[in-house]
């Protein structure tokens, strides 16, 4: 089976989905599940044909392990969140279009990961940007989709510039070859490195491009937020991968100033990653909207992934790649659970929720496992990847970046706990007395993702084997596993043992607990209130200003956002001025200006 067949099958299926959705949108939504499942299976089969070259009209593709890896992550996220689509069809303005865009963006990502030349890469990249822009627009606010589009467009235009620059120098568009022409031209390499990486940085939400994430994630349709955060953000990581592998940034800058063995340009990008860890963490702690909180956490985790991939060595690179998967899964799970809570209660504001565990125990458990992974606590997937990154950083001695990584990982305990406590635990408001547990259909993706998180946490070997393949492909030292143990220069980790010993400890505690007298069940309101009689559950629920002291410490105005606002006001003013000049009520004025413009244009041509 060739890649082109797969691509064409998928395109055909998405058109079918669109046509079905026009007749019955709910059925169409089920078609998105089926199509993404088919994609998953086909991609899985493609594993055997890695190395295959394919082309259709002007697009050329090459099947690589890394492309396969990225697209598998993407499809898993698309597939699992597709299960929510049928429930949201009623809320969409254009349900058929939503289904179509959902699948086309999936195809776009796959095409992009397997692209062999710049044009293919760029066109598929833009397909994803456009389709997702239209989807985000169907959510809460239109403004966020503008912001998303503008940030993406800036990124992709600058990257296009880099591609053209490379083309000019090398005369070829093939990714793996074109960059070779840059050797021996450090200044040009520098320009290309930063400009090429820009699309990736803007996509992964690295500081200072992180503003779009919370806006877009927060207001996108609830079904698409898991895809945005779990999937599309990771496209940026792919660009980062190209910049260290095909572009070979380490060789290109080998003569430049180095910091702890890292060339300065790469180090600068890594510092940006570190800053986004800190900024993402601090902002996530301050959010009241659960989706925005998770979006900022994606900013922070994007920083980890970027740092890991850019280090491009045995340890941290494996960590970054593994973090890509574990975060994609954890964050998709978290977004799905929040989407379900929003579906049942109608809000994602944490201060308006509470006590959901008594109504949705399964959703709670799934969320719990997701956040344990997200916070990097064993025995879940997130721990292994963070462990690898931290060990890698210690290996290099990158102190400041490690400090940011520590801040992010302790800070993540804070922000993941907030929805846990404010949404699921605490007092149940009377108005949520009749909330129901997620339906079976919604539970399926939760189970699938939870099993995946656990599997990665206990047997990271499954993923690390593929990563070792990528490392072999990229020509760096492969990560070593002996049995279940990850063996690296400065430490060993046997996650299976950690899991077993945790189970052992849990068992001992359970036995002691059961041996003691059974507890009496009391209501939630029968709680210590300094002997005051309180009858309003909402008053006893601590959810707003959860980290008040910390928020007080970080209340300083947020400089980047202010800057952006100022710039956008200026641009708007210029736009208004232009508008007032051209579209005045008197046609004579307009014509006058048009003549002037044309005159300048022609004169410019002559001169």
């Amino acid at each position, binding site marked *: 089976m060739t890649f082109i067949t797969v691509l064409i099958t998928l395109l055909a299926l998405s058109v079918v989905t669109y046509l079905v959705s026009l007749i019955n949108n709910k059925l169409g939504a089920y078609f998105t599940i089926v199509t993404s499942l088919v994609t998953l299976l086909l991609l899985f089969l493609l594993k055997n044909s890695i190395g295959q070259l394919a082309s259709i009209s002007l697009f050329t593709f090459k099947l690589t392990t890394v492309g396969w890896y990225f697209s598998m992550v993407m499809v898993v996220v698309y597939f699992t969140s597709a299960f929510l689509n049928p429930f949201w069809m009623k809320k969409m303005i254009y349900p058929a279009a939503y289904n179509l865009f959902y699948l086309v963006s999936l195809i776009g990502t796959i095409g992009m990961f397997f692209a062999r030349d710049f044009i293919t890469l760029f066109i598929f990249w833009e397909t994803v940007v456009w389709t997702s822009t239209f989807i985000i627009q169907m959510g809460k606010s239109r403004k966020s989709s503008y912001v998303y589009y503008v940030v993406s467009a800036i990124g992709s235009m600058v990257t296009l510039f880099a591609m053209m620059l490379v083309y000019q120098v090398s005369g070829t568009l093939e990714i793996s070859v074109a960059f070779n022409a840059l050797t021996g031209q450090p200044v040009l390499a520098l320009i290309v490195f930063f400009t090429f990486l820009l699309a990736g940085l803007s996509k992964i939400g690295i500081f200072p491009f992180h503003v779009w994430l919370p806006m877009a994630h927060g207001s996108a349709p609830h079904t698409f937020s898991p895809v945005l955060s779990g999937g599309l953000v990771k496209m940026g990581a792919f660009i980062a991968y190209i910049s260290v592998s095909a572009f070979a940034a380490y060789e290109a800058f080998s003569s430049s100033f180095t910091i702890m063995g890292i060339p300065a340009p790469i180090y600068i990008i890594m510092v940006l990653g570190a800053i986004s860890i800190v900024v993402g963490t601090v902002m996530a702690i301050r959010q009241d909207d659960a989706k925005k909180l998770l979006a900022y956490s994606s900013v922070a985790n994007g920083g980890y992934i970027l740092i890991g991939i850019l280090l491009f060595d045995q340890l941290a690179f494996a960590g970054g790649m593994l973090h890509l998967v574990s975060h994609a899964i954890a964050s998709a799970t978290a977004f799905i659970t929040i989407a379900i809570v929003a579906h049942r209660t109608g809000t994602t504001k944490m201060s308006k929720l509470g006590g959901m*565990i*008594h109504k949705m125990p399964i959703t709670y458990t799934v969320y719990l496992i997701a956040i344990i992974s997200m*916070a*990097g*606590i*064993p025995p879940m997937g997130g*721990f292994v990847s963070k*462990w690898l990154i*931290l060990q890698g*950083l*210690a290996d290099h*001695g990158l*102190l400041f970046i*490690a*400090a940011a990584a*520590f*801040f992010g990982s*302790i800070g993540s*305990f*804070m922000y993941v*706990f907030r929805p846990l*406590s404010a949404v699921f*635990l*605490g007092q149940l408001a009377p108005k949520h007395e009749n909330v129901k547990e997620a339906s079976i259909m919604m539970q399926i993706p939760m189970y699938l993702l939870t099993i995946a998180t656990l599997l990665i946490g206990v047997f990271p070997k499954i993923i690390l084997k593929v990563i070792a393949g990528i490392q072999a492909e990229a020509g760096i030292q492969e990560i070593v596993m002996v049995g279940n143990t990850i063996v690296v*220069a*400065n*430490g*060993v*980790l046997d996650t299976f*043992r*950690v899991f077993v*010993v*945790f189970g*052992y*400890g*849990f068992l*001992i*505690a*359970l036995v*002691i*607990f059961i041996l*003691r*007298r059974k*507890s*009496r069940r*009391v209501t*939630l309101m*029968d*709680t*210590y209130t*300094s002997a005051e009689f309180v009858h309003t559950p909402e008053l*006893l629920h*601590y959810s707003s200003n*959860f*980290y*008040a*002291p*910390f928020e*007080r*410490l970080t209340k300083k105005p947020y400089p980047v956002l202010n800057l952006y606002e100022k710039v956008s006001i200026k641009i708007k003013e210029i736009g208004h001025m232009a508008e007032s000049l051209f579209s005045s009520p008197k046609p004579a004025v307009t014509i006058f200006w048009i003549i002037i413009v044309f005159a300048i244009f022609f004169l410019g041509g002559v001169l």
Partner: protein
Amino acid sequence: MTVMNFVYGFIILLAAFIFQTTITGFNRKVTARIQKRYGPRWYQQFLDIFKALRKSSITHGWIFDFGVIMALGGIMATVIFIPVAGFEAFPNMDNVYIISYLLAIGMLGMAMSAAGSGNPWASIGVSRALTNMLAYDIPLMIVIFTLIFAFDTASVSEIAAMQQGMGILGWNAIRMPLGGIVAFIALFGMLGKKPFDSFIAPAEIASGPMVEYGGKHLGFMFILHELMTFIEVSLILNLFFGGGSSILVYAIKYAILYTLVNIISQVMPRYKIDQAVKFFYRVPLVFAIIQGLVVIFLGWGVSVWF
């Protein structure tokens, strides 16, 4: 992984519990003497724990129970991984990151159960405890990071073994004095000793996370607290004060370190939580970074004595 590993693990658990509870009892007496009191019996802490386990209890739903069990389970698993004077129940599992992050699962369980009680004070306590953790953990982790970089291993027992054989001069706290200070201050934060005890402030937020516990849940919390203390003091002892070449030396050093922390904390007032964060980011963080830079760029302290 054989049955013996699990038996050893159980022995470590039991020994750690008995040892630390005795030390706590002893320290209650020390505290009393500082306050010019006579103080309780040395085994008072045991009586308290068994009494709590004996009483009847209430529950606020399954998460209230489950959280407590998960907390104790996580903490017990962490204790099993702690190397004591070179003895490990599960060899090669004493990675510093495993210990410090596995500890977090216990804390998460406790926080979950506390918030599950539906009491606002519990949630306030948890939010303070987490903020406190963000304060003390960053400087400490930076110093630990420096150690890993310097010795090229993240194994607690190996780092402890490297410090032995030179007497007091071998200790990391002496070789890297700023790092030692940071670790010592961070120990106060980890143990929730004054001045960093605002998250359990009894008079202010009714003992924070513990507010709704009674009976066996409270007994669990006490056991958990003893084991957690054991983990934290052991970690600092192994990493910065040379561990112990034999169990006896280890126990004596442990007792001295813990008592010292207790004595100092008894004459301290209490920081507000944001003051604690400010303090940790102003003094220990700067110390930790200076220490890190000194070790990474100058190499002082790594092999300066030999």
